[in-house]
């Protein structure tokens, strides 16, 4: 048999470690990545002509980031690396790629999806105004472009990234006005037993909060976001919120970084026809996989945060583990002992991730409480009231049905940023469990695809 054809989608922590395992086994995998450079989002690399050192860019994670980048640089001659390449569809044992207007169909024996994550968003009235950014976006601005998203920045939402990015902004000299965490402090105490699974990460988080307070940043827990203030021309001008049952407060700012932890990018798993199951801890639909990353579809493997949010450290372990599983399935010799040890690592991070979900809960109830005039779907400009009216008129209470009638999730982003909140709103309005609402089906193209695709003269 000729060398097995392995395709890895994504060049972040999981994809890099998967590629490394393939190369060590004597295989030259194809690595497809949308980014201009490897590293993914969390270890995103700055442009070539930027000079900030690793310690400044990645803080406590600098050694990991550097090791990952150096690994990838060392692999480049031994992999078929295609940057700025979108995988827009998968069918019949081929991934379909687009690089500008060039289109290719690449056959595979094993496909490793290491597609990473994007921010999970809970809409707040006014979040369509210029100056509202996702938390991950705020971090990309700083890490990859050395800019702050505004002159006076508020961080609002929940999750470890909230504190991490806020403190990175402070350290870089940005004016951080406040960190508004929707999670109650008590939730973190409750989550301690699970969080202790990875004490160093837990301690990093505690240190970040202390550093923020020392820097004079207002940090609040149990926040109920009410409204992002602003106007249609100049954008954002402030935030109105409440702490617990307290009085309404308003903070002036020109930027807000918002997010509630992350959600996996599962569209390619969906297009590859992988089975999904509802995860009650994160209230998300996740592609099913076994302990080694095998999906329900033979030859399709899932690793890293693109399958389930377990963090960058876990992604490195699961990327390698999944690649070893794929290599073993293809009949190549693999180290069973190493696989067992990697499984143990992934399990540890899984416990920690469960702790994070407890400590920084997704505020599902906020979706049901969105005022009618609040924009729910930013792409299509659909309000919470529009969706509720459609539900009343048509009786729709299934995610794709509600989308078909209301256009929620029908826009350019394909529901990445409104889909989970829309499902919670539907569940609240229909008084049904959110899993009964179902999930938005993934539809090609995964990202917008130019009509000139395949036009060799373009």
């Amino acid at each position: 048999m000729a060398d097995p054809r392995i395709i890895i989608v994504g060049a972040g922590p999981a994809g890099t470690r998967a590629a490394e395992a393939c190369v060590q086994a004597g295989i030259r995998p194809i690595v497809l990545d949308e980014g201009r450079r490897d590293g993914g989002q969390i270890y995103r690399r700055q442009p070539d002509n930027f000079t900030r050192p690793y310690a400044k860019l990645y803080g406590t994670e600098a050694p990991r980031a550097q090791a990952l980048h150096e690994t990838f640089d060392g692999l480049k001659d031994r992999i078929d690396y295609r940057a700025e390449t979108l995988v827009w569809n998968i069918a019949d044992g081929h991934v379909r790629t687009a690089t500008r207007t060039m289109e290719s169909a690449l056959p595979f024996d094993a496909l490793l999806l290491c597609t990473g994550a994007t921010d999970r968003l809970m809409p707040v009235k006014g979040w369509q105004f210029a100056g509202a950014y996702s938390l991950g976006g705020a971090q990309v601005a700083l890490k990859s472009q050395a800019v702050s998203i505004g002159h006076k920045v508020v961080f609002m939402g929940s999750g470890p990234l909230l504190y991490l990015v806020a403190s990175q902004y402070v350290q870089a000299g940005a004016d951080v006005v406040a960190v508004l965490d929707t999670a109650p402090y008590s939730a973190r105490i409750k989550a301690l037993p699970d969080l202790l699974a990875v004490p160093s990460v837990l301690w990093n988080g505690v240190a970040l909060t202390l550093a923020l307070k020392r820097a004079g940043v207002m940090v609040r827990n149990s926040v109920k976001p009410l409204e992002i203030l602003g106007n249609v021309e100049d954008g954002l001008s402030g935030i109105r919120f409440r702490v617990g049952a307290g009085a309404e407060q308003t903070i002036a700012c020109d930027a807000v970084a918002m997010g509630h932890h992350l959600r996996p990018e599962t569209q390619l798993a969906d297009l590859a026809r992988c089975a999904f199951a509802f995860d009650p801890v994160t209230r998300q639909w996740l592609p099913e996989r076994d302990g080694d990353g095998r999906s329900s579809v033979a030859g399709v493997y899932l690793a890293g945060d693109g399958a389930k949010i377990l963090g960058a450290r876990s992604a490195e372990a699961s990327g390698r583990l999944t690649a070893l599983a794929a290599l073993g399935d293809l009949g190549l010799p693999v180290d069973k002992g190493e696989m067992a040890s990697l499984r143990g690592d992934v399990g540890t991070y899984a416990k920690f991730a469960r702790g994070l979900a407890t400590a920084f809960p997704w505020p599902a109830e906020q979706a049901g409480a969105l005022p009618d005039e609040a924009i729910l779907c930013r792409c299509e400009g659909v309000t919470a009231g529009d969706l509720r009216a459609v539900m009343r008129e048509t009786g729709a209470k299934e995610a794709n049905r509600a989308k078909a009638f209301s256009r929620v999730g029908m826009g350019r982003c394909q529901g990445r940023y409104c889909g989970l909140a829309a499902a919670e709103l539907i569940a609240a309005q229909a008084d049904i469990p959110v899993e009964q609402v179902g999930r938005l089906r993934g539809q090609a193209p995964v990202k917008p695809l130019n009509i000139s695709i395949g036009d060799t003269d373009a």
Partner: protein
Amino acid sequence: MSRFVRLGETDRPSLTLHVDGAPIAALEGDTLMVALLSQGAALRQSEFGPERRAGFCLMGACQDCWVWTESGDRLRACSTLAAPGQRILTSQPEASWPTHA
């Protein structure tokens, strides 16, 4: 008015591009988004609402930062580098194929 604030890496060579017909200066290595928002408040007009938009995710996922070239091509501002001579529009060009039916 600017939206983004540069916090470092400012010793890069500068370049000039045009936005809505007027020249602006940017730095080599800037994304189009950073180039535009370092000297302006927004990138584009929302199709379905009255507000201006300035991008959201910065990682090519939300599709909120598409701008246009004067020749009608679409560019995602967060994942396209600014380049000398680019001629960018922040409002969608009116269709060049009007019908009179």
